[in-house]
């Protein structure tokens, strides 16, 4: 990969994010590390509560300050560390260099302001554009995200748009200032499949047109296969497997990844038989010691329940790393802490 030679745009190093529940701090992320290059899409995939959204909110600096904190680690973005950055400095970054889109566009759009006004807002705030100039730029954005008859719909309100069109408006808002990084948190989960396919195509197209890096959060492995360059599978607050998308689907190695793939009833072939993963994700306050997946794992050995394995490269493919002492015994010291 040519991108590997230049410095990554975003680098997470041992990120630990904690939440306070019942008077004690519990780690929702426990040492998440990854690097993301320009024009690269990393998919964060996992089930509810695995830490995908917390990762994105940590990067955006949008964690609720009252009951959460970044306890350790660094978030290096374009040369500077975002951890500990002032709220004012973060506000200059958000919507400007880093943008985020969410699952439910209606809850992130203001219902009493017109769509056009909201798209122009970040141009006014970050670029100091005014009046007709802001309106023209916003209209161009709505055209770019392929809203039909954008000029007529500029002064419509969000409730007059369908779900797919609202998500396009969100994308236009997020991309207004040509961010270097887009965080997309389940952006197509609430959409019908044909509309999902349209929005995925739009995101892929705009990403390469802008040379943007994208973190795409989803629980849908089918969507991952369609949009990602690289994949990180998360479980209980940690990355348990990461690889290039082709490699991951060709050789799923962590027992959790493997099991997840077997739980999906496929559209394109008859399922030989569905396999369920027994049990459920443990709650933050009652994480098992050792490997967090051990209680649900078919390959569990006694040692798994005692020591938490590190993310270790596979002998055959250094770029494919797996957190499992059965499948990927750490022969040498792991490259990342």
């Amino acid at each position, binding site marked *: 990969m040519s991108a590997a030679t230049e410095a990554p745009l975003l680098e997470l190093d041992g990120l630990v994010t904690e939440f306070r529940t019942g008077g004690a701090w519990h780690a929702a992320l426990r040492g998440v590390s990854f690097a993301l290059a320009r024009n690269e899409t990393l998919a964060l995939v996992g089930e509810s509560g695995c830490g995908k959204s917390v990762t994105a909110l940590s990067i955006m600096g949008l964690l609720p300050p009252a009951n959460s904190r970044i306890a350790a680690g660094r978030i290096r973005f374009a040369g500077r560390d975002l951890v500990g950055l002032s709220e004012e400095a973060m506000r200059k970054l958000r919507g400007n260099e880093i943008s985020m889109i969410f699952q439910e566009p209606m809850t992130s759009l203001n219902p009493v302001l017109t769509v056009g006004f909201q798209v122009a807002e970040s141009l006014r705030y970050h670029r100091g554009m005014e009046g007709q100039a802001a309106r023209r730029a916003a209209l161009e954005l709505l055209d770019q995200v392929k809203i039909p008859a954008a000029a007529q719909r500029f002064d419509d309100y969000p409730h007059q748009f369908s779900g797919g069109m609202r998500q396009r408006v969100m994308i236009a808002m997020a991309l207004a200032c040509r961010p270097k990084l887009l965080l997309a948190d389940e952006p197509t989960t609430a959409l*019908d499949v044909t509309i999902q396919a349209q929005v995925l195509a739009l995101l892929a197209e705009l990403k390469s047109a802008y040379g943007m890096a994208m973190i795409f959060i989803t629980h849908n492995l089918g969507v991952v*296969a369609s949009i990602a360059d690289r994949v990180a599978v998360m479980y209980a607050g940690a990355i348990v497997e990461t690889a290039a998308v082709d490699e991951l*689907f060709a050789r799923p190695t962590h027992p959790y990844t493997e099991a997840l793939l077997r739980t*999906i*009833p496929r559209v394109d072939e*008859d399922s030989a038989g*569905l396999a369920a993963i027994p049990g*459920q994700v443990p709650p933050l306050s009652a994480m098992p010691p050792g490997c967090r997946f051990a209680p649900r794992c078919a390959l569990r050995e006694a040692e798994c329940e005692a020591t938490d394995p590190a993310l270790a490269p596979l002998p055959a493919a250094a770029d494919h790393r797996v957190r499992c002492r059965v499948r990927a015994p750490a022969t040498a010291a792991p490259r990342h802490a």
Partner: protein
Amino acid sequence: MPEPMLEVAGLRKFFEVKRGFPRATTVTVRALDGISFTVGAGQSFGLVGESGCGKSTAGRAVLRLIEPDEGRVAFKGEDVLAAGKERLRALRRKMQIVFQDPYASLNPRRMIGKALTEPMRVHGVGAPGERVARAELLLAEVGLPKNAMTRYPHEFSGGQRQRIGIARALTLEPELIVADEPVSALDVSIQSQILLLLQGLQERRRLSFIFISHDLGVVRYFCQSMAVMYLGRIVETGPIPAIFKEPLHPYTKMLRDASPVPDPTRKVAMLRIEGEVPSAVNPPAGCHFHTRCPHAMEICRKAYPEWTPLGDGRGVACHLHKV
């Protein structure tokens, strides 16, 4: 096909809705515009389509949770729509429903034991002690411990709540279950647990299912035959293997090709799909799908295609497939 458990013919339901501000106008939503299908005994029949296509209305209209305007529903030969109060009550014991969001369908202030014994009490099944014993057996059957009886809905996870929803649907020993997106709100690992549970119950109890879902993968796995709905009408129906091998209606093909599969060498056909889903308030003239159809012809804009039965249980409404 085995003897039919349920036969639906020409089922129609229009809703009058007030829309607009400040001056509201009344519009008609053609939620169900004359649909017909048959569910075989012990079979699972999938109803598939995108939001607003009428699939949930269809499920509810069959049970008369929504009164249909017109049509015929026969459960083992008995006319459901003509049934009076008493007969309907008896029929409802045989036809039950499982909802998508079990949290919304369970009373938060009522213990699970009460939620499970209530239907038996209402229908006069068993003495109080027997009801409790049966509720405990049902809990075991859906994989929950006995002590769930004295707990409240909020104490359970989403997957466990869906198990409770299923147990409640089973309290009166139904023969047909309408499952309305029963796994859509669940994480994938839990989704497969619930699908396996439903499959086991179906085999043990010889249940018939109307399985409503937007997820073609889930329907392909769980059902033997299916119908694809678009804006209140069925556009294609047939046995699962045949439809997935060779979808006839362009909409069925579009749905199949847009459904993501976990294989990077088969990315979803993203760019070829254009257009938005029109509304059931004002469906396009002619074939409702022509505004999005890659094969739309002149006639498609004018006339709704007639239903064309093709043998082997297949049928399609499309001008491309006329005999």
